[in-house]
Protein backbone atom coordinates (compact mmCIF):
# COMPACT_ATOMS: atom_id res chain seq x y z
CA UNK A 1 0.00 0.00 0.00
CA UNK A 2 0.94 3.61 -0.37
CA UNK A 3 1.08 4.05 3.38
CA UNK A 4 3.51 1.24 3.96
CA UNK A 5 5.70 2.50 1.11
CA UNK A 6 5.86 5.92 2.68
CA UNK A 7 6.63 4.33 5.97
CA UNK A 8 9.42 2.29 4.45
CA UNK A 9 10.80 5.33 2.72
CA UNK A 10 10.86 7.30 5.94
CA UNK A 11 12.59 4.52 7.77
CA UNK A 12 15.24 4.15 5.13
CA UNK A 13 15.95 7.91 5.10
CA UNK A 14 16.31 8.30 8.80
CA UNK A 15 18.29 5.11 9.15
CA UNK A 16 20.71 6.20 6.35
CA UNK A 17 24.15 6.35 7.92
CA UNK A 18 26.86 8.14 6.04
CA UNK A 19 29.98 6.03 5.47
CA UNK A 20 32.05 8.09 7.82
CA UNK A 21 32.96 8.28 11.42
CA UNK A 22 31.99 11.91 11.37
CA UNK A 23 29.22 12.49 13.92
CA UNK A 24 26.70 15.25 13.48
CA UNK A 25 28.03 17.00 16.55
CA UNK A 26 31.49 17.49 15.01
CA UNK A 27 29.93 19.16 11.99
CA UNK A 28 27.92 21.47 14.22
CA UNK A 29 31.08 22.21 16.16
CA UNK A 30 32.79 23.22 12.93
CA UNK A 31 30.08 25.83 12.46
CA UNK A 32 27.67 24.08 10.07
CA UNK A 33 23.97 24.56 10.79
CA UNK A 34 21.69 21.53 10.99
CA UNK A 35 20.54 21.83 7.40
CA UNK A 36 24.08 22.47 6.19
CA UNK A 37 25.25 19.39 8.07
CA UNK A 38 22.48 17.36 6.38
CA UNK A 39 23.78 18.58 3.03
CA UNK A 40 27.35 17.72 3.96
CA UNK A 41 26.19 14.13 4.52
CA UNK A 42 24.45 14.33 1.12
CA UNK A 43 27.70 15.27 -0.57
CA UNK A 44 29.36 12.27 1.04
CA UNK A 45 26.65 9.93 -0.11
CA UNK A 46 27.28 11.00 -3.71
CA UNK A 47 30.51 9.03 -3.58
CA UNK A 48 30.36 5.43 -4.57
CA UNK A 49 32.09 2.71 -2.55
CA UNK A 50 32.03 1.78 1.11
CA UNK A 51 34.78 3.76 2.79
CA UNK A 52 34.87 6.44 0.09
CA UNK A 53 34.49 9.42 2.41
CA UNK A 54 36.95 8.18 4.98
CA UNK A 55 39.09 11.33 4.82
CA UNK A 56 36.15 13.62 5.43
CA UNK A 57 37.37 14.96 8.73
CA UNK A 58 40.86 15.86 7.58
CA UNK A 59 39.53 17.36 4.36
CA UNK A 60 37.04 19.55 6.20
CA UNK A 61 39.70 20.59 8.66
CA UNK A 62 42.11 21.52 5.89
CA UNK A 63 39.46 23.60 4.15
CA UNK A 64 38.66 25.50 7.35
CA UNK A 65 42.35 26.09 7.97
CA UNK A 66 42.46 27.78 4.55
CA UNK A 67 40.02 30.29 5.99
CA UNK A 68 36.90 29.19 4.12
CA UNK A 69 33.57 29.55 5.92
CA UNK A 70 31.03 26.71 6.29
CA UNK A 71 28.81 27.82 3.44
CA UNK A 72 31.69 28.04 0.92
CA UNK A 73 33.03 24.72 2.17
CA UNK A 74 29.61 23.17 1.58
CA UNK A 75 29.35 24.70 -1.90
CA UNK A 76 32.75 23.46 -2.99
CA UNK A 77 32.10 19.98 -1.65
CA UNK A 78 28.89 19.86 -3.61
CA UNK A 79 30.96 20.69 -6.69
CA UNK A 80 33.69 18.21 -5.88
CA UNK A 81 32.81 15.51 -3.30
CA UNK A 82 35.91 13.57 -4.46
CA UNK A 83 37.84 15.74 -1.99
CA UNK A 84 36.74 13.38 0.81
CA UNK A 85 38.79 10.64 -0.77
CA UNK A 86 42.07 12.53 -0.65
CA UNK A 87 44.51 11.61 2.12
CA UNK A 88 45.49 14.43 4.41
CA UNK A 89 49.18 14.13 3.53
CA UNK A 90 48.40 14.43 -0.18
CA UNK A 91 46.11 17.36 0.40
CA UNK A 92 48.86 19.15 2.34
CA UNK A 93 51.41 18.42 -0.42
CA UNK A 94 49.08 19.80 -3.07
CA UNK A 95 48.34 22.93 -1.05
CA UNK A 96 51.98 23.57 -0.34
CA UNK A 97 52.81 23.06 -4.01
CA UNK A 98 50.27 25.73 -4.94
CA UNK A 99 51.75 28.05 -2.32
CA UNK A 100 55.19 27.48 -3.82
CA UNK A 101 53.77 28.58 -7.18
CA UNK A 102 52.96 31.90 -5.56
CA UNK A 103 49.32 31.32 -4.75
CA UNK A 104 49.33 32.59 -1.20
CA UNK A 105 46.50 32.84 1.25
CA UNK A 106 43.87 35.12 -0.31
CA UNK A 107 44.28 33.83 -3.83
CA UNK A 108 44.69 30.22 -2.73
CA UNK A 109 41.45 30.42 -0.80
CA UNK A 110 39.61 31.93 -3.77
CA UNK A 111 41.13 29.41 -6.14
CA UNK A 112 40.03 26.44 -4.03
CA UNK A 113 36.54 27.88 -3.52
CA UNK A 114 36.13 28.52 -7.23
CA UNK A 115 37.85 25.41 -8.57
CA UNK A 116 38.09 22.76 -5.79
CA UNK A 117 39.08 20.16 -8.41
CA UNK A 118 42.59 21.65 -8.22
CA UNK A 119 43.06 19.65 -4.99
CA UNK A 120 42.32 16.27 -6.54
CA UNK A 121 44.95 16.74 -9.24
CA UNK A 122 48.31 15.09 -8.42
CA UNK A 123 51.24 17.42 -7.74
CA UNK A 124 53.10 15.85 -10.66
CA UNK A 125 50.37 16.79 -13.14
CA UNK A 126 50.42 20.40 -12.02
CA UNK A 127 54.21 20.46 -12.17
CA UNK A 128 54.05 19.21 -15.76
CA UNK A 129 51.59 21.90 -16.76
CA UNK A 130 53.75 24.54 -15.11
CA UNK A 131 56.82 23.16 -16.86
CA UNK A 132 54.96 23.21 -20.15
CA UNK A 133 53.86 26.84 -19.64
CA UNK A 134 57.35 27.91 -18.60
CA UNK A 135 59.48 25.98 -21.06
CA UNK A 136 57.34 25.40 -24.15
CA UNK A 137 55.37 28.63 -24.05
CA UNK A 138 57.92 30.84 -22.23
CA UNK A 139 55.48 32.34 -19.76
CA UNK A 140 57.13 34.06 -16.76
CA UNK A 141 56.68 32.77 -13.21
CA UNK A 142 54.28 35.61 -12.51
CA UNK A 143 52.25 34.87 -15.67
CA UNK A 144 52.05 31.18 -14.78
CA UNK A 145 50.70 32.13 -11.37
CA UNK A 146 48.09 34.41 -12.98
CA UNK A 147 47.09 31.70 -15.42
CA UNK A 148 46.62 29.15 -12.63
CA UNK A 149 44.64 31.62 -10.59
CA UNK A 150 42.38 32.77 -13.43
CA UNK A 151 42.11 29.59 -15.49
CA UNK A 152 42.82 26.69 -13.12
CA UNK A 153 41.00 24.15 -15.30
CA UNK A 154 44.10 24.31 -17.51
CA UNK A 155 45.64 21.65 -15.23
CA UNK A 156 43.30 18.96 -16.54
CA UNK A 157 43.60 19.91 -20.21
CA UNK A 158 45.40 17.71 -22.68
CA UNK A 159 48.85 19.28 -23.22
CA UNK A 160 48.79 18.63 -26.98
CA UNK A 161 45.57 20.59 -27.18
CA UNK A 162 47.08 23.29 -24.97
CA UNK A 163 50.14 23.51 -27.13
CA UNK A 164 48.00 23.81 -30.25
CA UNK A 165 45.93 26.55 -28.65
CA UNK A 166 49.01 28.44 -27.54
CA UNK A 167 50.67 28.18 -30.96
CA UNK A 168 47.45 29.18 -32.67
CA UNK A 169 47.14 32.36 -30.64
CA UNK A 170 50.87 33.12 -30.70
CA UNK A 171 51.52 32.53 -34.38
CA UNK A 172 48.19 32.96 -36.12
CA UNK A 173 46.90 35.82 -34.01
CA UNK A 174 50.27 37.32 -33.17
CA UNK A 175 49.44 37.68 -29.47
CA UNK A 176 52.25 37.68 -26.90
CA UNK A 177 52.37 35.77 -23.61
CA UNK A 178 51.68 38.79 -21.39
CA UNK A 179 48.45 39.51 -23.26
CA UNK A 180 47.35 35.88 -23.18
CA UNK A 181 47.82 35.76 -19.41
CA UNK A 182 46.23 39.13 -18.81
CA UNK A 183 43.10 38.42 -20.85
CA UNK A 184 42.55 34.88 -19.58
CA UNK A 185 43.06 33.07 -22.86
CA UNK A 186 43.06 29.69 -21.16
CA UNK A 187 39.50 30.08 -19.97
CA UNK A 188 38.36 29.55 -23.54
CA UNK A 189 38.31 26.37 -25.55
CA UNK A 190 40.30 26.14 -28.74
CA UNK A 191 37.07 26.13 -30.73
CA UNK A 192 35.79 29.31 -29.09
CA UNK A 193 39.05 31.06 -29.89
CA UNK A 194 39.28 29.75 -33.43
CA UNK A 195 35.65 30.47 -34.28
CA UNK A 196 35.89 34.10 -33.29
CA UNK A 197 39.33 34.65 -34.75
CA UNK A 198 38.64 32.90 -38.07
CA UNK A 199 35.35 34.72 -38.43
CA UNK A 200 37.11 38.06 -38.03
CA UNK A 201 39.99 37.00 -40.24
CA UNK A 202 37.73 35.93 -43.09
CA UNK A 203 35.75 39.13 -42.77
CA UNK A 204 38.99 41.01 -43.29
CA UNK A 205 39.03 42.39 -39.73
CA UNK A 206 42.04 40.48 -38.38
CA UNK A 207 45.48 39.96 -39.84
CA UNK A 208 48.43 37.81 -38.82
CA UNK A 209 51.26 40.25 -38.10
CA UNK A 210 54.36 39.96 -40.29
CA UNK A 211 57.85 39.16 -38.98
CA UNK A 212 58.21 42.63 -37.57
CA UNK A 213 54.83 42.35 -35.90
CA UNK A 214 53.12 44.70 -38.30
CA UNK A 215 49.70 44.57 -39.92
CA UNK A 216 47.98 46.69 -42.55
CA UNK A 217 44.82 46.98 -40.46
CA UNK A 218 44.53 47.46 -36.71
CA UNK A 219 43.59 44.16 -35.12
CA UNK A 220 40.96 44.18 -32.38
CA UNK A 221 42.37 43.39 -28.92
CA UNK A 222 42.24 39.85 -27.59
CA UNK A 223 40.18 41.17 -24.69
CA UNK A 224 37.41 42.51 -26.93
CA UNK A 225 37.38 39.30 -28.95
CA UNK A 226 37.16 36.85 -26.06
CA UNK A 227 35.87 38.51 -22.93
CA UNK A 228 32.49 39.56 -24.31
CA UNK A 229 29.30 37.63 -24.90
CA UNK A 230 28.41 36.57 -28.43
CA UNK A 231 25.93 39.38 -29.10
CA UNK A 232 28.46 42.02 -28.12
CA UNK A 233 31.17 40.30 -30.13
CA UNK A 234 28.93 40.29 -33.21
CA UNK A 235 27.62 43.82 -32.80
CA UNK A 236 30.82 45.62 -31.78
CA UNK A 237 33.70 43.62 -33.18
CA UNK A 238 32.60 41.42 -36.08
CA UNK A 239 29.73 43.68 -37.21
CA UNK A 240 27.84 40.65 -38.43
CA UNK A 241 24.49 38.97 -37.92
CA UNK A 242 23.89 36.04 -35.58
CA UNK A 243 22.65 34.08 -38.58
CA UNK A 244 25.99 34.45 -40.37
CA UNK A 245 27.97 33.45 -37.30
CA UNK A 246 25.76 30.45 -36.67
CA UNK A 247 26.22 29.13 -40.20
CA UNK A 248 29.93 29.92 -40.00
CA UNK A 249 30.43 27.87 -36.85
CA UNK A 250 28.71 24.88 -38.40
CA UNK A 251 30.80 25.19 -41.54
CA UNK A 252 34.01 25.48 -39.48
CA UNK A 253 33.16 22.45 -37.42
CA UNK A 254 32.81 20.45 -40.62
CA UNK A 255 35.97 21.96 -42.16
CA UNK A 256 38.07 21.11 -39.10
CA UNK A 257 36.58 17.69 -38.70
CA UNK A 258 37.53 16.90 -42.28
CA UNK A 259 41.16 17.94 -41.78
CA UNK A 260 41.41 16.45 -38.29
CA UNK A 261 43.73 13.46 -39.08
CA UNK A 262 46.91 15.48 -38.30
CA UNK A 263 45.69 16.64 -34.91
CA UNK A 264 44.40 13.16 -34.16
CA UNK A 265 47.81 11.62 -34.75
CA UNK A 266 49.43 14.07 -32.32
CA UNK A 267 46.98 12.93 -29.67
CA UNK A 268 47.70 9.29 -30.36
CA UNK A 269 51.42 9.64 -29.47
Amino acid at each position, binding site marked *: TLQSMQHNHKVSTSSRKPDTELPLQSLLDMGFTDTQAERVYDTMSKLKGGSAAKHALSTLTALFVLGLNPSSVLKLLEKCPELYTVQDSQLQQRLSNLRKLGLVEGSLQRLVAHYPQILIVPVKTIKNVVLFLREKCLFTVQQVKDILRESPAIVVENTDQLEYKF*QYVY*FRMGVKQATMAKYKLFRFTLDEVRHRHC*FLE*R*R*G*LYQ*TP*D*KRGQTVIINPKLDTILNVDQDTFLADVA*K*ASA*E*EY*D*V*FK*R*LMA*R*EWQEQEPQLGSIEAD
Partner: protein
Amino acid sequence: GKWAATLAKQPATSLALQHFDATYSGQLGELWPSIRVALLSEKKYGALFNNFSHESTLAQLEAQGCRDFISDTGTEAQPSEVAVEEESNCVSIKKSDIDGQLLSPLQLSPHIKCLVFPRGDITRFKPARPDMYGLLGYYLMDAASVLPVLALDVQEGHSVLDLCAAPGGKTLALLQTQSIGFLCVNDSSVSRTLRLRRVLRSFVPKQLLTDEKLHISSLDGTKWGEVESNTFDRVLVDVPCTTDRHSVTEDDNNIFSKSRTGERRRLPQLQLELLLAGIEAACPGGEILYSTCTLSQIQNQSVVEQAIFLAQENHGIRLQVVDLKPLPHMFRKTFHFAPNLHLGEMVIPHLAANFGPIYMCKLRRLS
Protein backbone atom coordinates in the same frame (compact mmCIF):
# COMPACT_ATOMS: atom_id res chain seq x y z
CA GLY B 1 59.44 26.43 -39.22
CA LYS B 2 56.03 25.58 -40.68
CA TRP B 3 54.53 28.83 -39.51
CA ALA B 4 57.30 31.02 -40.84
CA ALA B 5 57.23 29.31 -44.23
CA THR B 6 53.54 29.99 -44.80
CA LEU B 7 54.06 33.61 -43.86
CA ALA B 8 57.00 34.12 -46.20
CA LYS B 9 55.34 32.88 -49.40
CA GLN B 10 52.71 34.95 -51.18
CA PRO B 11 50.36 32.42 -52.71
CA ALA B 12 48.09 33.52 -55.53
CA THR B 13 45.06 33.24 -53.27
CA SER B 14 46.43 35.94 -50.94
CA LEU B 15 47.37 38.14 -53.89
CA ALA B 16 43.76 37.79 -55.04
CA LEU B 17 42.45 38.62 -51.59
CA GLN B 18 44.66 41.70 -51.33
CA HIS B 19 43.45 42.86 -54.70
CA PHE B 20 39.80 42.34 -53.76
CA ASP B 21 40.23 44.03 -50.38
CA ALA B 22 41.61 47.07 -52.15
CA THR B 23 38.93 47.30 -54.85
CA TYR B 24 35.78 45.80 -53.34
CA SER B 25 35.86 47.51 -49.95
CA GLY B 26 35.39 50.75 -51.89
CA GLN B 27 32.94 49.38 -54.43
CA LEU B 28 30.78 47.37 -52.02
CA GLY B 29 31.38 49.24 -48.76
CA GLU B 30 29.73 47.64 -45.75
CA LEU B 31 28.68 44.60 -47.77
CA TRP B 32 32.26 43.53 -48.42
CA PRO B 33 33.10 41.81 -45.07
CA SER B 34 30.01 39.59 -45.35
CA ILE B 35 30.79 38.73 -48.95
CA ARG B 36 34.45 38.13 -48.11
CA VAL B 37 33.77 35.60 -45.37
CA ALA B 38 31.29 33.82 -47.63
CA LEU B 39 33.78 33.65 -50.51
CA LEU B 40 36.32 32.09 -48.16
CA SER B 41 33.87 29.53 -46.75
CA GLU B 42 32.30 26.47 -48.33
CA LYS B 43 29.99 27.37 -51.16
CA LYS B 44 26.54 25.96 -51.68
CA TYR B 45 25.47 24.02 -54.71
CA GLY B 46 22.27 23.72 -56.60
CA ALA B 47 21.16 20.51 -58.31
CA LEU B 48 20.11 21.33 -61.85
CA PHE B 49 17.40 18.76 -62.38
CA ASN B 50 17.86 16.69 -65.53
CA ASN B 51 14.52 16.34 -67.28
CA PHE B 52 16.05 13.69 -69.58
CA SER B 53 17.02 11.25 -66.84
CA HIS B 54 14.83 8.49 -65.49
CA GLU B 55 16.83 8.34 -62.27
CA SER B 56 16.32 10.33 -59.08
CA THR B 57 12.87 11.79 -59.19
CA LEU B 58 12.16 15.21 -57.82
CA ALA B 59 10.39 13.58 -54.90
CA GLN B 60 13.57 11.78 -53.86
CA LEU B 61 15.52 15.02 -53.79
CA GLU B 62 12.74 16.86 -52.03
CA ALA B 63 12.64 14.14 -49.38
CA GLN B 64 16.21 15.14 -48.47
CA GLY B 65 14.97 18.64 -47.67
CA CYS B 66 15.74 20.61 -50.79
CA ARG B 67 13.33 22.39 -53.10
CA ASP B 68 13.19 23.85 -56.59
CA PHE B 69 13.95 27.50 -55.99
CA ILE B 70 12.57 28.57 -59.36
CA SER B 71 8.99 27.52 -58.68
CA ASP B 72 9.32 28.47 -55.01
CA THR B 73 8.87 32.21 -55.40
CA GLY B 74 6.85 34.94 -53.85
CA THR B 75 5.35 33.02 -50.97
CA GLU B 76 6.35 35.84 -48.67
CA ALA B 77 5.41 38.59 -51.10
CA GLN B 78 3.36 41.46 -49.84
CA PRO B 79 0.23 41.38 -52.05
CA SER B 80 -0.02 45.17 -52.15
CA GLU B 81 3.40 45.43 -53.69
CA VAL B 82 3.76 42.48 -55.97
CA ALA B 83 1.60 40.18 -58.01
CA VAL B 84 3.11 36.91 -59.08
CA GLU B 85 1.51 35.05 -61.92
CA GLU B 86 2.29 31.49 -62.72
CA GLU B 87 1.04 30.18 -66.04
CA SER B 88 1.78 26.51 -66.63
CA ASN B 89 5.57 26.28 -66.46
CA CYS B 90 6.21 29.78 -67.60
CA VAL B 91 6.84 32.14 -64.72
CA SER B 92 6.26 35.81 -65.18
CA ILE B 93 6.12 38.62 -62.71
CA LYS B 94 4.57 42.05 -62.65
CA LYS B 95 5.92 44.41 -60.06
CA SER B 96 4.66 47.84 -59.43
CA ASP B 97 7.31 50.18 -58.13
CA ILE B 98 6.77 52.96 -55.65
CA ASP B 99 5.39 55.37 -58.26
CA GLY B 100 2.79 52.81 -59.23
CA GLN B 101 4.36 52.37 -62.64
CA LEU B 102 4.32 48.86 -64.02
CA LEU B 103 7.64 47.26 -64.76
CA SER B 104 7.45 45.20 -67.92
CA PRO B 105 6.83 41.57 -67.02
CA LEU B 106 9.90 39.38 -67.15
CA GLN B 107 9.57 36.11 -69.04
CA LEU B 108 11.72 33.27 -67.83
CA SER B 109 12.77 30.12 -69.65
CA PRO B 110 10.39 27.28 -68.80
CA HIS B 111 11.05 23.73 -67.56
CA ILE B 112 14.27 24.53 -65.72
CA LYS B 113 14.34 23.16 -62.20
CA CYS B 114 17.14 23.70 -59.75
CA LEU B 115 17.05 22.31 -56.25
CA VAL B 116 18.72 23.93 -53.27
CA PHE B 117 18.79 23.30 -49.55
CA PRO B 118 17.08 26.06 -47.56
CA ARG B 119 18.76 29.18 -46.31
CA GLY B 120 21.32 28.40 -43.60
CA ASP B 121 21.19 24.66 -44.29
CA ILE B 122 24.69 23.36 -45.09
CA THR B 123 23.73 19.86 -46.20
CA ARG B 124 25.65 18.65 -49.24
CA PHE B 125 24.20 16.90 -52.26
CA LYS B 126 25.15 13.32 -52.94
CA PRO B 127 26.71 12.68 -56.34
CA ALA B 128 24.09 12.05 -59.00
CA ARG B 129 23.52 8.49 -60.18
CA PRO B 130 23.06 7.27 -63.74
CA ASP B 131 19.75 5.84 -64.90
CA MET B 132 19.40 2.71 -67.06
CA TYR B 133 20.56 4.67 -70.12
CA GLY B 134 23.55 6.06 -68.26
CA LEU B 135 22.05 9.57 -67.93
CA LEU B 136 22.65 11.35 -64.63
CA GLY B 137 19.76 12.67 -62.56
CA TYR B 138 21.15 16.13 -61.83
CA TYR B 139 24.11 18.41 -62.43
CA LEU B 140 25.67 20.13 -59.43
CA MET B 141 26.49 23.78 -60.03
CA ASP B 142 26.26 27.20 -58.44
CA ALA B 143 22.50 27.69 -58.26
CA ALA B 144 22.96 31.37 -59.13
CA SER B 145 24.45 30.29 -62.48
CA VAL B 146 20.99 29.19 -63.52
CA LEU B 147 19.71 32.78 -63.35
CA PRO B 148 21.43 34.01 -66.54
CA VAL B 149 19.89 31.08 -68.43
CA LEU B 150 16.47 31.73 -66.91
CA ALA B 151 16.74 35.40 -67.75
CA LEU B 152 17.70 34.62 -71.34
CA ASP B 153 14.10 33.48 -71.89
CA VAL B 154 14.51 30.94 -74.68
CA GLN B 155 11.26 30.42 -76.57
CA GLU B 156 9.94 27.67 -78.81
CA GLY B 157 12.05 27.18 -81.93
CA HIS B 158 14.71 29.75 -81.02
CA SER B 159 18.20 29.47 -82.37
CA VAL B 160 20.63 29.96 -79.52
CA LEU B 161 24.36 30.60 -79.28
CA ASP B 162 26.35 29.77 -76.14
CA LEU B 163 29.59 31.58 -76.93
CA CYS B 164 31.78 30.54 -73.97
CA ALA B 165 30.15 27.31 -72.98
CA ALA B 166 32.58 24.93 -71.28
CA PRO B 167 32.28 23.00 -69.03
CA GLY B 168 28.60 23.23 -69.94
CA GLY B 169 26.51 23.90 -66.86
CA LYS B 170 24.56 26.67 -68.52
CA THR B 171 24.35 24.71 -71.78
CA LEU B 172 22.65 21.93 -69.84
CA ALA B 173 20.24 24.41 -68.29
CA LEU B 174 19.47 25.81 -71.75
CA LEU B 175 18.71 22.30 -73.02
CA GLN B 176 16.33 21.68 -70.12
CA THR B 177 13.93 24.20 -71.67
CA GLN B 178 13.36 21.70 -74.51
CA SER B 179 12.29 24.54 -76.70
CA ILE B 180 15.51 25.34 -78.56
CA GLY B 181 15.34 24.95 -82.34
CA PHE B 182 19.07 25.01 -82.93
CA LEU B 183 21.90 25.37 -80.44
CA CYS B 184 25.46 26.46 -81.15
CA VAL B 185 27.90 25.70 -78.38
CA ASN B 186 31.38 27.19 -78.48
CA ASP B 187 34.45 27.44 -76.28
CA SER B 188 37.90 28.46 -77.47
CA SER B 189 39.60 25.90 -75.26
CA VAL B 190 39.81 22.52 -76.99
CA SER B 191 40.31 20.56 -73.78
CA ARG B 192 37.41 22.30 -72.12
CA THR B 193 35.25 21.65 -75.17
CA LEU B 194 36.04 17.96 -74.80
CA ARG B 195 34.92 18.15 -71.22
CA LEU B 196 31.73 19.85 -72.35
CA ARG B 197 31.07 16.99 -74.79
CA ARG B 198 31.45 14.49 -71.97
CA VAL B 199 29.04 16.48 -69.81
CA LEU B 200 26.46 16.59 -72.56
CA ARG B 201 26.79 12.85 -73.18
CA SER B 202 26.20 12.14 -69.47
CA PHE B 203 23.01 14.19 -69.31
CA VAL B 204 21.36 14.46 -72.71
CA PRO B 205 19.96 11.63 -74.88
CA LYS B 206 21.84 11.05 -78.16
CA GLN B 207 18.84 11.92 -80.32
CA LEU B 208 18.97 15.49 -78.99
CA LEU B 209 22.67 15.86 -79.78
CA THR B 210 22.39 15.37 -83.55
CA ASP B 211 23.93 17.75 -86.10
CA GLU B 212 20.53 19.26 -86.99
CA LYS B 213 19.95 20.32 -83.40
CA LEU B 214 23.41 21.01 -82.02
CA HIS B 215 26.72 22.30 -83.23
CA ILE B 216 29.84 22.29 -81.05
CA SER B 217 32.91 24.35 -81.93
CA SER B 218 36.22 25.48 -80.43
CA LEU B 219 36.63 28.90 -82.01
CA ASP B 220 37.89 32.15 -80.61
CA GLY B 221 34.58 33.70 -79.69
CA THR B 222 35.78 37.24 -80.42
CA LYS B 223 35.87 36.30 -84.13
CA TRP B 224 32.34 34.91 -84.18
CA GLY B 225 30.76 37.98 -85.68
CA GLU B 226 32.97 37.66 -88.77
CA VAL B 227 31.76 34.10 -89.38
CA GLU B 228 28.07 34.29 -88.65
CA SER B 229 26.26 37.52 -87.80
CA ASN B 230 22.63 38.62 -87.41
CA THR B 231 21.59 35.02 -86.82
CA PHE B 232 20.60 34.04 -83.31
CA ASP B 233 17.44 34.75 -81.34
CA ARG B 234 19.32 34.32 -78.07
CA VAL B 235 23.01 34.62 -77.25
CA LEU B 236 24.62 33.73 -73.96
CA VAL B 237 27.98 35.43 -73.38
CA ASP B 238 29.32 33.86 -70.18
CA VAL B 239 32.81 35.29 -70.31
CA PRO B 240 36.08 34.28 -68.67
CA CYS B 241 36.69 36.54 -65.65
CA THR B 242 38.67 36.71 -62.40
CA THR B 243 36.37 33.94 -61.01
CA ASP B 244 36.51 35.60 -57.60
CA ARG B 245 35.52 32.61 -55.51
CA HIS B 246 38.01 30.31 -57.17
CA SER B 247 40.75 32.94 -56.97
CA VAL B 248 40.58 33.33 -53.20
CA THR B 249 40.34 29.60 -52.45
CA GLU B 250 42.45 27.65 -54.97
CA ASP B 251 46.11 28.25 -55.75
CA ASP B 252 46.04 25.93 -58.76
CA ASN B 253 45.20 27.56 -62.06
CA ASN B 254 44.82 30.93 -60.35
CA ILE B 255 44.58 34.04 -62.51
CA PHE B 256 46.23 36.09 -59.77
CA SER B 257 49.48 34.12 -59.97
CA LYS B 258 52.33 36.43 -60.96
CA SER B 259 52.82 34.67 -64.29
CA ARG B 260 49.27 35.48 -65.41
CA THR B 261 49.24 39.20 -64.63
CA GLY B 262 49.10 40.15 -68.31
CA GLU B 263 46.25 37.80 -69.03
CA ARG B 264 44.34 39.16 -66.04
CA ARG B 265 44.84 42.77 -67.12
CA ARG B 266 43.56 41.94 -70.61
CA LEU B 267 40.33 40.37 -69.28
CA PRO B 268 38.09 43.45 -69.61
CA GLN B 269 39.20 43.92 -73.22
CA LEU B 270 38.57 40.22 -74.01
CA GLN B 271 35.19 40.41 -72.29
CA LEU B 272 34.27 43.47 -74.31
CA GLU B 273 35.26 41.79 -77.56
CA LEU B 274 33.30 38.65 -76.68
CA LEU B 275 30.20 40.64 -75.80
CA LEU B 276 30.46 42.65 -79.04
CA ALA B 277 30.82 39.41 -80.99
CA GLY B 278 27.75 38.05 -79.22
CA ILE B 279 25.82 41.23 -80.06
CA GLU B 280 26.77 40.91 -83.72
CA ALA B 281 25.78 37.25 -83.72
CA ALA B 282 22.27 38.09 -82.51
CA CYS B 283 19.56 38.89 -85.02
CA PRO B 284 17.75 42.21 -84.83
CA GLY B 285 15.16 41.79 -82.10
CA GLY B 286 17.33 39.08 -80.59
CA GLU B 287 18.51 39.14 -76.99
CA ILE B 288 21.96 38.84 -75.51
CA LEU B 289 22.80 37.92 -71.94
CA TYR B 290 26.19 38.90 -70.56
CA SER B 291 27.31 37.15 -67.40
CA THR B 292 30.36 36.72 -65.18
CA CYS B 293 31.20 35.23 -61.81
CA THR B 294 33.07 38.26 -60.53
CA LEU B 295 32.02 41.24 -58.42
CA SER B 296 34.27 43.55 -60.39
CA GLN B 297 32.59 46.65 -61.80
CA ILE B 298 35.30 46.90 -64.44
CA GLN B 299 34.47 43.41 -65.72
CA ASN B 300 30.72 43.85 -65.31
CA GLN B 301 28.96 47.19 -65.75
CA SER B 302 31.87 48.89 -67.50
CA VAL B 303 32.14 46.15 -70.14
CA VAL B 304 28.42 46.37 -70.87
CA GLU B 305 28.50 50.17 -71.07
CA GLN B 306 31.38 50.14 -73.50
CA ALA B 307 29.80 47.40 -75.59
CA ILE B 308 26.58 49.39 -75.92
CA PHE B 309 28.58 52.41 -77.00
CA LEU B 310 30.87 50.58 -79.42
CA ALA B 311 28.07 48.52 -80.98
CA GLN B 312 26.41 51.74 -82.01
CA GLU B 313 29.63 53.53 -82.89
CA ASN B 314 31.33 50.80 -84.94
CA HIS B 315 28.48 48.64 -86.18
CA GLY B 316 25.45 50.89 -86.07
CA ILE B 317 23.70 48.43 -83.77
CA ARG B 318 21.28 49.99 -81.30
CA LEU B 319 20.71 48.14 -78.05
CA GLN B 320 18.25 48.37 -75.23
CA VAL B 321 18.96 47.22 -71.71
CA VAL B 322 16.31 44.74 -70.57
CA ASP B 323 15.27 45.34 -67.00
CA LEU B 324 15.99 42.34 -64.75
CA LYS B 325 14.66 44.08 -61.61
CA PRO B 326 11.95 41.46 -61.01
CA LEU B 327 14.62 38.77 -60.49
CA PRO B 328 15.90 39.96 -57.11
CA HIS B 329 12.35 40.17 -55.91
CA MET B 330 11.27 36.76 -57.14
CA PHE B 331 14.28 34.94 -55.80
CA ARG B 332 14.98 36.86 -52.61
CA LYS B 333 14.25 33.74 -50.59
CA THR B 334 17.17 31.99 -52.20
CA PHE B 335 19.79 34.61 -53.08
CA HIS B 336 21.22 37.88 -51.86
CA PHE B 337 21.32 40.49 -54.60
CA ALA B 338 23.50 43.58 -54.68
CA PRO B 339 21.33 46.64 -54.08
CA ASN B 340 21.16 49.60 -56.46
CA LEU B 341 23.22 48.41 -59.40
CA HIS B 342 22.76 50.96 -62.15
CA LEU B 343 23.13 48.28 -64.81
CA GLY B 344 22.24 44.56 -64.55
CA GLU B 345 21.77 42.43 -61.47
CA MET B 346 24.26 40.62 -59.28
CA VAL B 347 23.97 37.74 -56.80
CA ILE B 348 26.35 38.34 -53.92
CA PRO B 349 27.59 35.57 -51.64
CA HIS B 350 26.31 35.43 -48.07
CA LEU B 351 27.07 32.70 -45.50
CA ALA B 352 23.40 31.76 -45.16
CA ALA B 353 22.95 31.66 -48.96
CA ASN B 354 26.44 31.03 -50.20
CA PHE B 355 25.88 31.26 -53.95
CA GLY B 356 27.51 33.52 -56.51
CA PRO B 357 28.94 35.93 -57.26
CA ILE B 358 27.03 36.03 -60.53
CA TYR B 359 26.60 39.20 -62.53
CA MET B 360 24.16 39.38 -65.43
CA CYS B 361 22.92 42.02 -67.79
CA LYS B 362 20.47 41.53 -70.65
CA LEU B 363 20.46 43.48 -73.90
CA ARG B 364 17.94 43.55 -76.74
CA ARG B 365 19.13 44.29 -80.23
CA LEU B 366 16.92 46.91 -81.79
CA SER B 367 18.60 47.13 -85.19
